[in-house]
């Protein structure tokens, strides 16, 4: 469903701030894979997701989504295939627009924006039903401005928006990191529900190793701009934090980094 091959990305090339963020990154996701992504700060996790989403072009390598080479497509064109939730709750929604307007914008992802009405009565009814699933009471506040919502509510809404039009690929970049633990758990549960009910191919970055182990059918660990650990199937089910740290020190050839990994 997603295939990254030999992807390289360097930021600020040729300056003192030069940073090779992705180094010969290879990754292949099967349809329906729910992959959790872990790795220390600066490992290149966000860069990988942004490269897939087309926030910036990569220097080398190819990115295929559902067999289609998207490497040369701008971000807004790739959006047709991709649903995204960002770490920052402010990023995924338009604060000055209503809840239903945000949903209507998302429902038209990948479709031409015509001079037809921006939202219809039938849509409103549909959104009300979908908002009920989130169980946050948003179905009664559909004409409220999104800016009035809490961070958790905004993330849940963004998640719904990302999946309103079934995407080929769902990208979640620490989408619960900015939330309090209780809300984070709620949003994570909603994520699981949505991903599993639509069998979405998903990449979910998290800093919480327990979540990374508990969710999904596959786990990858990034280090220095590429994937160093890739666990799936039965092995993933049997995974523990200790085993994960073990795998990491083997892969990176040092165990001092593992402390950094836990701390981060």
């Amino acid at each position: 469903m997603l295939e990254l091959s030999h992807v390289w990305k360097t930021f600020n090339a040729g300056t003192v701030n030069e940073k090779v963020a992705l180094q010969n990154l290879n990754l292949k996701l099967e349809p329906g894979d729910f992959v959790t992504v872990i790795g220390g700060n600066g490992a290149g996790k966000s860069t990988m997701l942004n490269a897939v989403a087309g926030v910036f072009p990569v220097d080398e390598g190819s990115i295929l989504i559902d067999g289609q080479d998207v490497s040369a497509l701008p971000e807004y064109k790739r959006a047709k295939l991709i649903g995204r939730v960002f770490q920052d709750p402010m990023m995924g929604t338009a604060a000055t627009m209503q809840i239903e307007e945000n949903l209507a914008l998302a429902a038209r992802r990948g479709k031409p924006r015509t001079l037809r009405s921006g939202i219809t009565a039938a849509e409103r009814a549909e959104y009300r039903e979908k908002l009920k699933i989130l169980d946050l009471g948003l179905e009664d506040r559909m004409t409220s401005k999104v800016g009035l919502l809490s961070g958790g509510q905004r993330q849940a809404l963004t998640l719904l928006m990302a999946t309103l039009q079934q995407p080929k690929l769902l990208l979640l970049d620490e989408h619960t990191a900015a939330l309090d633990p209780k809300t984070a758990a709620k949003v994570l549960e909603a994520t699981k529900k949505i991903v599993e009910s639509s069998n979405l191919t998903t990449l979910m970055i998290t800093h919480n190793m327990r979540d990374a182990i508990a969710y999904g059918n596959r786990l990858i660990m990034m280090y220095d701009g590429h994937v160093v650990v890739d666990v799936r199937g039965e092995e993933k089910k049997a995974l523990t934090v200790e085993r994960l740290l073990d795998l990491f020190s083997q892969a990176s050839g040092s165990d001092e980094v593992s402390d950094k990994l836990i701390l981060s």
Partner: protein
Amino acid sequence: MDFLDNLNGFVNALPGAVAEGLIWGIMAIGLFITYKLLEISDLTVDGSFCTGGAVCAAMMTAGFNVWFAMLMAFLSGMAAGWVTGFLHTKCKIPAILASILTQLGLWTVNMAVMGMRSTMAILAVNNDVMVAMVFLEEVALGMKPFFYHPILTVGLFSAVIIGLLYWFFGTERGASIRATGANVHMARAQGINTDFNKVLGLMLANGLVALSGSLLAQYKGSAEINMGRGAIVIGLAAIIIGEVTFGKLFKNFALRLVAVSLGAIIYYIVIQMVISLIDVDAQYMKLFSAAVVAVFLTVPNLQKGKARHKKERKEVQNA
């Protein structure tokens, strides 16, 4: 006695102030699209306002009908907006700088349109214009039917424009333009071509600005190379005055545009008041307007700052 004279003069000048305010209101509505919806500071308007006046004057002098002249004025404004949009989105020049470049270039264009002279007349006696200052008097004296009254004509015009914009910004495309201004990351993630929308918004806005310029040129009887100087300040003043005065009441999009138009009227009434009641030399007005707008732009930020401090203090207390 002196003051009464002045008051009398003010009252007599009131209809003119309202009419002129309404005309500038259309330009402010254009500015609303860029400044409020797209969050772009577009200085093109100082040039495109005059472009509208100049094109209208040139077309009418060449014998074209007023509607066609105004259509061409609108299109020429759109072209100006497109240039700014191109410089910004394709050449990656910061929007404010891109718009200054367009504005500077337009000065020459505007001169050329007016045959390299700094003014060009469109006199109501010779032309079949839509609005003219003399109509105020002529309607009052019964020489022309009431529907020639500039307040009525421009008011109707504004209402139609507001209606059309209300419809447009409710469409899929219009909503996507609002999203582009509200959150560009979200817009792109939802598959919206944000660059295209910015160009479209700039074109629409400057089209309206030029249309307003064409009305002012008719109203005053001539297009003049400096007629748009400071237009952005007048537009901002109208937007802010409208927001401060009616913001609590007018939440609906159409009403917010009405507020902009009313803001422009209030602005012109205040200016007229200062000129006729306090006897201020008209030359001082630019400094006065700039200062007023600076204050109005500052106040909301101060309030925001205060609210934040309060919140922070609370957080510290709670911690």
